[in-house]
């Protein structure tokens, strides 16, 4: 028995030793390769950075410039150009983008875009989008049908950067098939579009799309302060039960101060979800509390801390007519929680005055 056990243990030792050896070797190999690439990039940058500045200053010919760079160094060049593209604007940005638009570089990128290796496709799509190369649009659209999430995100982002408004619907449809694609990722893609994407998105908002997509669309409308969407956003607010979407609609209405939505927002003061009540209080504060002052004041005595705080802050900031009442509450010892919160908000105003 112990002889067999010993045998097993020796085998385990052998396996563990091999595992340790191979794992260390693999990681050091990876690191050496990574360090080699970094050194190579630095060397290239030292050599070519000056040439790019000269090209920008002298308004050089992009074709001539690219001819001087050996094709095996295109990736290094692109990495260097990336830093310029991210920091420059206007004609200087265009001048750098012209380099990427040159046939040799473009062909190089397209070849990589058609590769089976995810990393190659992702980097290629990244540069096509960063340089806003419109002629790559069709190829990028085809790539949206991929099963790979990184490829989808990079191609969709590039299309957004190119401002390919016509594919926004496809992007949203395809996004549904990626289980791990977060709301943040989708919003990040949409944010790359310019304001003209709002019109097609407005049509989509009334169609049957998942709530998280509607939420991203309303966020985008808020980003662009897209007034035309206000009636549709209000309609969405009346129809949905999704808390995140409700919150996003309320924030949109508040930021563009869409007074016509008052009738939809008012009942939400008593919503069972405290987050909704909070947003409704803040929104009504901005739209004008009018006859709802007492109602908002009553929220100072709510069971939920966030609701109480929102009521106190809204009264102190947006409802001057109720500030005296807030002061009274602050010195009313019988209403302990409301008193504390009123004092806290009023002290904060004092603190700001001190600061």
């Amino acid at each position: 028995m112990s002889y067999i056990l010993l045998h097993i243990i020796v085998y385990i030792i052998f396996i563990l030793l091999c595992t340790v050896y191979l794992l260390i070797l693999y990681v050091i190999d990876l690191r050496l390769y990574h360090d080699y690439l970094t050194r190579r990039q630095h060397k290239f940058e030292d050599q070519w950075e000056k040439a790019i500045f000269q090209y920008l200053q002298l308004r050089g010919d992009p074709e001539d410039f690219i001819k001087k760079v050996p094709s095996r160094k295109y990736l290094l060049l692109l990495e260097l150009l990336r830093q310029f593209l991210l920091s420059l604007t206007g004609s200087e940005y265009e001048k750098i983008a012209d380099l990427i638009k040159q046939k040799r570089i473009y062909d190089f990128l397209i070849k990589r875009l058609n590769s089976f290796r995810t990393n190659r496709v992702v980097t290629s799509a990244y540069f096509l989008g960063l340089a806003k190369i419109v002629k790559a649009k069709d190829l990028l659209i085809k790539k949206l049908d991929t099963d790979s999430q990184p490829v989808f995100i990079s191609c969709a982002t590039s299309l957004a950067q190119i401002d390919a408004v016509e594919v926004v619907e496809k992007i949203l449809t395809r996004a549904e098939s990626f289980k791990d694609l977060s709301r943040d990722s989708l919003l990040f893609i949409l944010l790359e579009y310019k304001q003209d994407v709002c019109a097609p998105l407005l049509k989509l908002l009334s169609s049957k799309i998942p709530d998280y997509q509607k939420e991203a669309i309303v966020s985008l409308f808020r980003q662009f302060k897209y007034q035309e969407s206000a009636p549709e956003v209000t309609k969405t607010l009346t129809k949905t039960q999704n808390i995140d979407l409700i919150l996003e609609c309320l924030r949109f209405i508040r930021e563009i101060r869409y007074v016509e939505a008052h009738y939809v927002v008012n009942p939400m003061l008593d919503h069972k979800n405290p987050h909704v009540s909070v947003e409704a209080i803040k929104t009504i504060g901005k739209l004008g509390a009018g006859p709802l002052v007492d109602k908002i004041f009553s929220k100072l005595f709510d069971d939920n801390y966030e609701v109480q705080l929102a009521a106190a802050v809204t009264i102190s900031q947006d409802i001057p007519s109720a500030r005296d009442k807030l002061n009274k509450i602050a010195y009313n010892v019988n209403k302990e929680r409301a008193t504390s919160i009123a004092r806290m908000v009023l002290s904060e105003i004092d603190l700001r005055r001190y600061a």
Partner: protein
Amino acid sequence: MPNIIKNIILSYNYLVLLYFLAICTIYLLLNILSFRNILRYNKKIHFIDLNRIFRLKNYKPISIIVPTYNEEMGIVESVKSLLQLEYPDFQVVVVNDGSQDNTLDKLFTNFGIRQVSFTPFYKLPSKPIGAIYISRDFPNLIVVDKENGGKADAINAGINIAKNPLIAVVDADSLLERDCLLKIARPFMEDDNVVAVGGTIRIANGCEIIQGHVAKVKLSHSWLVRFQVIEYLRAFLFGRNGLDALNSILIVSGAFSCFQRDALVKIGGYKVGSVGEDMEIIIRMHKVFRKENPKTKITFIPDPVCWTEVPATLKSLKSQRVRWQKGTIDGIRLHKDIFLNSKYGWLGLLGFPYYTLFEMLGPVVEISGYIVFIISFFLNLISPLFAVAFLTVAILYGVVLSILSVILEEISFKRYAKLGDLITLFAAAFIENFGYRQLVSWWRFLAIVEYVAGKRQWGDIEKKGFSHNN
């Protein structure tokens, strides 16, 4: 020697072997879960600019509570680092827990604080507050000066003052990554069932620190610190990550964690007088909130978001480990009804038993195992070959685990830029198995003995401060 004693000794050896096999299996399972978890996490946030996204989202404002006691060496750097964090809306509440050094003076000098009248909102138990100050230069910096009452008491006082719906608790000797709040607040926004989130802690000793931030990640020259780097990688990248996949995290580090304010208040805040308040509060949260809502989540983000100073001397390290071990025992003892209780899901069936059997009782089995093993060897109960082979397996297994954590760090976050540091880490992962781990086990064993004997108070930790590290 009577046969019965020989049989007992041999049986104990087999028991230790069985224990070893069980721990191997659990670790392997946790490793697999961790790899999956980290890859999924990276996939989720790799492409997005969190700062930009947060400005658009329904983000929740955060109050950062920093309990401090005699932190004059590092408090200025810490607060500076906190004030530079990227987040749309946050306040920093520094709670001076009756420091006897110049902590408060340093805050006066460096941040221009002045006393104001301010009414605390909640009434969580805490020692009396002497004064509340606000900074002239940074309106989101509040300093609370109170009587000494311990860390838990200081945090409770901070909660009473803090106003935001999310509460982050940060140790004064910690430095945070600029985007740490964006990352730690994200789980709360993704899922309303999340009540607490822990962050990954890394070791700052040896790193280059500029203006309260880790500018360059470097390994310390001290082997004691290097061994702790390996321990932290193992604990955070594998241990907590793996348990997170099963929603069975029993502790989030006190150095940096974030809570829903309402949840903290509902359970009455931190338990004053507890040895391991970080663990106790998490177990209590599981107990209270899982009863109400089985979907309640206490989760963890694998990104390295917080850097902390670790003990650089054997004396202070021993004191820390003794305290941690006592904290583990305290937390488990207070909530023993969770053990194998299916009402709590994986937490009751796996997480809690794991902590009880391997984290709490591990040192007892290990130390007694060594003793019985040596006795067996001298009594010729086991062959020398078997003894050597078994010890080799045990050590190699430890090495594999440590190396796997270094590998996971390298393929996911790659924070140690120098190849030399990576190789040193591999060396540390190997060397720590010869002496260091046994020493730590011995200290933990002593902690158990002390705890059982009724000696349950905290030990002292030597404070050096970041400005003196480098």
